[in-house]
C-alpha cells in the first residue's frame, strides 16, 4: 500500500536502503538486552531504519550526490555494519536462541499472535493517516515545488510518508526478511500501476495484491513444506507483477500490441479507401468500375484491406474490377475531418 508512494517517488531503492539499515538496529538491540524479544528488536530496527532514512535525506539535500548514490552508500554501509555485528553475535555462546538470522530472509512461521496483532494495528493506523492526509500526499508526490508555494509544509508531509514507509518495512522484516523486503514493498505497487490510472485505485489494488501474495505465499509454503515463507511470498508477488505487465488492458504489453495491430490495419484500410476515393472522384459516376491492378501501385494496399472494405460495403468487387459505393464515397470524403476530430477529442 505505502509502496505506491515509493514507486511514484521513483525512490524504489529506498525500501532496500531502509530494510538494510534496520539490520544493525536489530543486532544492537540484541547486544544490549542479550535475549530474544521481538518487540525490542523491532524498536531497534525502527530506530536504525529511521536514522538511515534521514541520513539519506540529509545527504541528498546537502551534497551534490544523486539520490541513487546516497541510497546505495547508506545501504551498503548499514548492511555491512549489521552483518559484522551479526557475525560477532553468532560467536557468542547464547547465539543459537537468538534466531537473528531469520531476519535476513524472514520466517513467517516465527510470527507470534502478538506480532500479527501489532502488524494489524500499525496497518490500521497507516491507513487512517493515509486517508486523512490523502490530498497532501497526492499533491506532494505530483508537484513538490507547487505544494510549497501553496503554503504547505512539504518537509512535514515528506517525513510523514517516509516514517510510515519505514515502519511498514520494519514490520515486514520478520515475514520476508531484510533482503526481500523491498521487493515486497514495491512489487504490489508496480503491478497495481499497470491496471489503473487513478492513484486511489492504485493504492487499494496494491494493498490487495500485497495481501494476496502474503496469504497465497504462506499457503504454498505450508502445503509444500520445507520452503521458507518469505521467498515464496515474494515469488507470488513477482508473478503478479509479471502477469500485470503483460496482460493489463491499459498499459500491458499484450493488449498494446493487439491494439496497435488493429489500429494499423484500420489505418491501412482507410488509406486504401482514400486512394480509391482519389480515383473515383475523377469520374462523374463515382461507382464507375476500375481495375484492381491500379491499386497495386499503392503502397498501403493489401488483399486483406480490400476485403475489409468490401465487408464494410464501402467498395464492390466485380471480377478484376472494383467500384465505390455511395456509402464508401461519403466515408472517404469525411475521413480527414474525422481524423482531425479524433486526435483532438
Amino acid at each position, binding site marked *: 500500500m505505502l509502496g505506491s508512494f515509493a514507486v*511514484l517517488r*521513483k525512490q524504489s531503492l529506498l525500501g532496500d536502503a531502509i530494510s538494510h539499515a534496520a539490520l544493525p538496529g536489530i543486532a544492537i538491540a540484541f547486544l544490549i538486552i542479550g535475549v530474544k524479544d521481538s518487540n525490542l528488536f523491532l524498536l531497534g530496527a525502527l530506530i536504525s531504519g529511521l536514522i538511515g532514512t534521514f541520513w539519506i535525506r540529509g545527504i541528498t539535500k546537502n551534497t*551534490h550526490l544523486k539520490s541513487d548514490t546516497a541510497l546505495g552508500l547508506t545501504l551498503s554501509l548499514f548492511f555491512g555494519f549489521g552483518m559484522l555485528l551479526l557475525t560477532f553475535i553468532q560467536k557468542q555462546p547464547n547465539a543459537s536462541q537468538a534466531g537473528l538470522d531469520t531476519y535476513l530472509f524472514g520466517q513467517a512461521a516465527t510470527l507470534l499472535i502478538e506480532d500479527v496483532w501489532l502488524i494489524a494495528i500499525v496497518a490500521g493506523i497507516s491507513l487512517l493517516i493515509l486517508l*486523512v*492526509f*490523502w*490530498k*497532501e500526499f*497526492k*499533491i506532494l*508526490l*505530483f*508537484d513538490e*515545488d*507547487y*505544494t*510549497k*508555494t*501553496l*503554503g*504547505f509544509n512539504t518537509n512535514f508531509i515528506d517525513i510523514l510518508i517516509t516514517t510510515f514507509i519505514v515502519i511498514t518495512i520494519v514490520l515486514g522484516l520478520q515475514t520476508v526478511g531484510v533482503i526481500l523486503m523491498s521487493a515486497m514493498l514495491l512489487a504490489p505497487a508496480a503491478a497495481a*500501476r499497470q491496471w*489503473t*490510472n*487513478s*492513484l486511489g485505485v*492504485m493504492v487499494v489494488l496494491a494493498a490487495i495484491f500485497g495481501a494476496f501474495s502474503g496469504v497465497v505465499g504462506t499457503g504454498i509454503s505450508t502445503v509444500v513444506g520445507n520452503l521458507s515463507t518469505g521467498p515464496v511470498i515474494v515469488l507470488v508477488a513477482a508473478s503478479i507483477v509479471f502477469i500485470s505487465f503483460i496482460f493489463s488492458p491499459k498499459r500491458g504489453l499484450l493488449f498494446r500490441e493487439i491494439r496497435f495491430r488493429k489500429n494499423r490495419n484500420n489505418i491501412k484500410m482507410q488509406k486504401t479507401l482514400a486512394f480509391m476515393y482519389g480515383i473515383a472522384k475523377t469520374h462523374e459516376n463515382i461507382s464507375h468500375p476500375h481495375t484492381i491492378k491500379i491499386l497495386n501501385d499503392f503502397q498501403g494496399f493489401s488483399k486483406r484491406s480490400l476485403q475489409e472494405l468490401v465487408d464494410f460495403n464501402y467498395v464492390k468487387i466485380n471480377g478484376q474490377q472494383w467500384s465505390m459505393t455511395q456509402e464508401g464515397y461519403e466515408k472517404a470524403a469525411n475521413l480527414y475531418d474525422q481524423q482531425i476530430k479524433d486526435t483532438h*477529442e
Partner: protein
Amino acid sequence: MEQKYAVTVDDLTVAYNYKPVLWDIDLMIPESVLMCIVGPNGAGKSTLIKAILGIIKPIAGTVSIFGKPYEKQRSLVAYVPQKGSVDWDFPTTALDVVMMGTYGSLGWIKRPGQKEKKASLEALEKVGMLPFKNRQISQLSGGQQQRIFLARALVQNAAIYFMDEPFQGVDATTEKAIINILKELRKAGKTVIVVHHDLQTVPEYFDWVTFLNVKKIATGPVKDIFNDDNLTKTYGINYKVSVQE
C-alpha cells in the same frame, strides 16, 4: 505620490554551488502590469521566480508582496511551473490537477467539495480544456498540459501570477489564447509575471519588462526600455561577465 508595488525584491542573492546564480537583485514590480522576464538560458529566470516564491532559499535578500513579507501573503500568489518540472505519467486526471489549485485555500486535511469542483471546471473552460477534464494527464499533448497548469493557477484566484515559460511548446493558436487570458487578468487588476523567450512578441504581449542575466540589467515599461542597448547588455557576446565581489 508613492506608488503601490505588487512585488518588491531587495538585495536577492542566490547560489546553488559556489557561483552566485543571482546577484544582488533589486526589483519593484508595480501592481497590475503584464511583465516578462527575458534573458539567455541559464540567466537565472526560473531561479528568480523560485526564490521569490520561497521554493529556493536565497543566501540573502527579502521579498515582499504588497508591502508585507511573502510568507504572510502566499494566498495572493499563484505559480505556473515550467512544464517539465513534474512527472506527467502520474496517475491522475486533468480535472484533478486543476483542483490542486484549490488546496491552498482549503488548508490541511479538508477535502475539496462541490464549490472547488465548480471553480476548477470553470477554469478548465476558460483555457478551453473542458472536453478533456477526465483525460489522463499522460495522454495530453504538451500544449494541453501547459493549459492545465494555467487553469490550476487560475483556480487559485490570486492577485499575482508567476509563470515560467507558459508558451513553451504551444502552437500559435494556443499562444494567442493564453496571452488573451493573461491580458484579461491584467485588466482585472492582477499582476502577471512571465518568463518569456520570444523577444519578437515582447512589445505586442507585454507592457513591462525585466532584463535579467545573473544581475538585473534593467526593468521598466516596454516602450521605454525595450531597446538594443539593453538587449545587447543582456544577450551580448560578453554576457557571461563574472560577478564582481
